[in-house]
């Protein structure tokens, strides 16, 4: 969903740049509470993993593809504020070094994929987890549903920006239907990948999953594992 240079007019790009800067600014302060000596290296790994995951486009039919956005995944693994920063770093590297996503659209892309992706994903994750049984097996399911909702929501947010400051004269309803429709399908891929990755991390190191805190495990931690105090 990387927006290139030119899709949006200058005022809209500046406005999303301000939103992104404010969001990242708050995240830089709030992430401190999520990061310690144990979780900081994990957060670096999550950012690197999201970069890798975004390179894998999967076909979704009719000559279209989608790839992981990773906001929900990162938020569940390392917390929403740190997760938003993870995706922001990925988008920065992509814009600076890979020519993926326009430099003038970096604020737009951070707003859509890092902020909307991580916070909508994490919000839905929390809501779903609250109604599921309190055990570790519920965490990947809730993460997958958060991921599923986050993608079409980001697509809808794109369309809102397009209606406000899109440089092309195309009916908003047409863009909304196509964007949300296709990204609902891509969201299924996002859900599957997110569920599998969260499940794999929970299997080996449940203590490293931010979203699994306070959820009772089905087995006692091994003596060789580090247990949070």
């Amino acid at each position, binding site marked *: 969903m990387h927006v290139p240079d030119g899709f949006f007019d200058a005022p809209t790009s500046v406005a999303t740049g301000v939103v992104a800067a404010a969001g990242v600014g708050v995240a*830089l302060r709030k992430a401190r509470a999520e990061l310690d000596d144990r979780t900081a290296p994990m957060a670096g790994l999550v950012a*690197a993993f999201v970069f*890798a995951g975004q390179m894998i486009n999967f076909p979704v039919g009719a000559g279209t593809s989608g790839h992981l956005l990773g906001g929900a995944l990162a938020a569940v693994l390392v917390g929403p504020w740190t997760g938003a920063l993870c995706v922001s770093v990925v988008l920065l*590297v992509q814009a600076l*070094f890979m020519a993926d996503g*326009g*430099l003038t659209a970096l604020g737009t892309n951070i707003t859509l994929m890092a902020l909307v992706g991580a916070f909508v994903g994490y919000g839905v994750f929390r809501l779903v987890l609250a109604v599921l049984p309190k055990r570790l097996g519920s965490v990947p399911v809730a993460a997958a549903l958060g991921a599923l909702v986050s993608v079409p929501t980001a697509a809808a947010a794109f369309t809102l920006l*397009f209606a406000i400051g899109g440089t092309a004269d195309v009916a908003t309803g047409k863009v909304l239907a*196509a964007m949300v429709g296709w990204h609902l399908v891509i969201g299924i891929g996002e859900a599957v990948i997110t569920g599998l990755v969260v499940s794999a991390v929970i299997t080996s190191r449940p203590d490293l999953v931010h979203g699994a805190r306070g959820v009772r495990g089905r087995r006692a931690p091994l003596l060789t594992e580090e247990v949070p105090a």
Partner: protein
Amino acid sequence: MKTRTFLLAGLLAALLIAGVASYYASSHPDGLEYVAGKTGFLDSADEEPVSTDSPFADYETSGVDNARLGGGLAGVAGVLLTLVIGGGLFRVLRRREEPTTVDAG
């Protein structure tokens, strides 16, 4: 699994995904690009976007003609750049524990 083992396994997975598996990814346009083409606003993208003259632009490696090798190198470079920038940022932001704590990882 020890923390160090876990982190190294995760990094290896990321490097393999970006460096090797990415070659087999779908080359179809992504959702946004497809919708932009279908509904008619793809042309509103700048023909000459702001460039940073990166050697890894478009997930290729300048000077490397082999698509598999060039794409893999760009993927590995991207993973490592993200790891260094992200890891450095999170290291600076983290709450430091008491210096008496011994890291078992």
